[in-house]
């Protein structure tokens, strides 16, 4: 349904250039729940914005293809692009606090979107709004919708944003760190709601997060990004069971587990994620990697599917691709 091919996004800086996304390949099939994980500066949010051509200024898509249902998003005229946004692709923001127009009512948000994409009349959209708000768990939707965003709590606002995202029956839902601004119990509520809605309406979804725990529970397939590139992609089960990229492995080890005993030692990855200001060849993770060789520093590893080996060991069932010269073999680490 969605196909991204060699996407590159860059931001001009006061001096030089910031390469936010450097050759991203990605596909989402109908009904699939894709997770995109990465640390700050990995390009995950920018990639998501680029899908609906919403890269914030002064950034721009410098090359690549984005196909949504076969049509080229990059070449789409403004009118069709607007039909795509909201109508085909729904977006859920990171900060619900600032994502609603503060001077128009909640109902008005729905009304304008429903009129635009579904051509509903005022009365029809009122009914539909109540129905939508109820489905996302807003108590007393009839009177709530006549209020303004500042009268809602953070969790409630995010529920409204979700209702707004699915209002016009899109086929793809993109959620950019939808729970980062929320408390853990509210996060659980929102994720549960997200899961339910995606399942009910058979939506495809892209969930962008830095939290591996969220990916584990709420996605089918994962893309791990680092410094604007995809490091590894696999089904969730596969990735957690057999991480193949040293970065993925390191990341999984870094995350403290609730159920683990206290050991007083923490697995770490030395260094910190880079800010990419030159698009040099070589693996971006090389400076922090413990398996680094001279090749890693000079040649960029391609994202390749892990194929069957002669001895048949360590291989993925479905699709599992990794961009690494020296991937971690299955069984190599406990």
């Amino acid at each position, binding site marked *: 349904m969605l196909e991204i091919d060699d996407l590159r996004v860059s931001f001009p800086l006061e001096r030089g250039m910031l390469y936010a996304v450097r050759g991203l390949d990605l596909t989402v099939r109908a009904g699939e729940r894709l997770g995109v994980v990465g640390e700050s500066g990995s390009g995950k949010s920018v990639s998501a914005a680029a899908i609906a051509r919403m890269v914030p200024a002064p950034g721009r898509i410098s090359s690549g293809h984005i196909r949504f249902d076969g049509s080229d998003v990059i070449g789409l005229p403004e009118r069709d692009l607007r039909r795509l946004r909201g109508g085909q692709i729904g977006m859920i923001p990171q900060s619900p606090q600032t994502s609603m127009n503060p001077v128009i009512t909640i109902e008005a948000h729905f009304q304008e979107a429903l009129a635009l994409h579904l051509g509903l009349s005022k009365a029809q959209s009122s009914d539909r709004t109540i129905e939508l708000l109820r489905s996302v768990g807003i108590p007393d939707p009839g009177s709530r919708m006549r209020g303004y965003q500042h009268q809602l709590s953070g969790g409630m606002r995010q529920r409204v944003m979700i209702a707004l995202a699915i209002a016009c029956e899109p086929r793809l839902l993109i959620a950019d760190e939808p729970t980062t601004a929320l408390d853990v119990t509210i996060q659980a509520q929102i994720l549960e709601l997200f899961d339910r809605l995606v399942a009910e309406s058979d939506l495809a979804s892209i969930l962008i997060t830095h939290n591996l725990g969220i990916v584990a529970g709420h996605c089918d397939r994962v893309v791990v990004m680092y410094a604007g590139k995809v490091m590894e992609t696999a089904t969730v089960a596969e990735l957690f069971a057999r991480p193949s990229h040293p970065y993925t492995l390191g990341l999984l080890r870094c995350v403290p587990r609730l159920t683990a005993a206290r050991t007083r*030692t923490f697995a770490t990855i030395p*260094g910190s994620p880079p800010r990419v200001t030159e698009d040099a060849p070589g693996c971006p993770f090389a400076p922090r990697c413990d398996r680094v060789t001279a090749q890693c520093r000079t040649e960029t590893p391609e994202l390749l599917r892990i194929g069957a080996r002669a001895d048949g060991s360590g291989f993925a069932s479905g699709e599992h691709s990794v961009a690494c010269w020296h991937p971690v073999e299955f069984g190599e680490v406990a």
Partner: protein
Amino acid sequence: MTAITVDTKPITAATPGFWRTAWRRFRRNKLALVSGIVVVLILLTAILAPLIAPQGYQVQDLANSLAGPSRGHLLGTDRLGRDLLSRAIYGARTSMLVAIGAPLLGAVIGIPIGILAGWYGRAVDFVALRLFEIFTMVPQILVALLLIALFGNSVGKLILFLGISSWLGFARLARAQYISLRNRDFVLAAQAVGVPTWRILIIHLLPSAVGPLIIFLVQEIPATIFASAGFSFLGLGVQDPLADWGKMLNDGTQYLSIDLWTVMVPTVCIALATLAFSFCGDGMRDAIDPSSRQSASR
């Protein structure tokens, strides 16, 4: 002892400091740079007036009064036959003295009040706010006018009264700055370390607040030129025979239809000075805080 992992991110090669970055931005802004040069030239003229001016500011040539530009008087003469160019050059002296002196005085009065109000809040702030209110109610110009009318005029008094009436802006700005800085984490961190309050106010907060205050000072200069020249123009400011641009305007208005130069020379001087200081101030603001112009282009 477990090895402490060293964060291996290469520490970026010495990036220029805050002021140096600001200077680089300022330099790239052509309008601001040119204005800055004009400002420097005006200030040099004011300082070096006796060396530059072809004549004294009170040398009269009654035979040649209200004469347009000539070889002897490049910009013509006024009603008493005084050389307009010389008077304009000496006028820069008086005008700049007031234009810079008065805001400085305002800053000296206003900034401490603003700092205390912003930092201590509560009762101190309440009193300060009421004080602000009283002073906002009557426009600054009227306050200064009243004071000058009541207490008489001289260059010194002009500075004093314009300075007194301009403290409000500095106090407001300093208060706003300190309020926004007061709750910043680094202040709490300094308190946690045990840094005494005076040290926090001066060593921690002043460097962060000083940029906007300096810019405000520069931007107050054209406003002061406006007021001081204005008062002289009304006949309330600088008195004969001293030269001042506003005074020259006052002298010239009556002869507007006879000799335009008597009005145009001071008009151009005032315009040039106010514009130069203004563009320069704007350039400084943009240099210190690029977001003020490029607003949120994240």
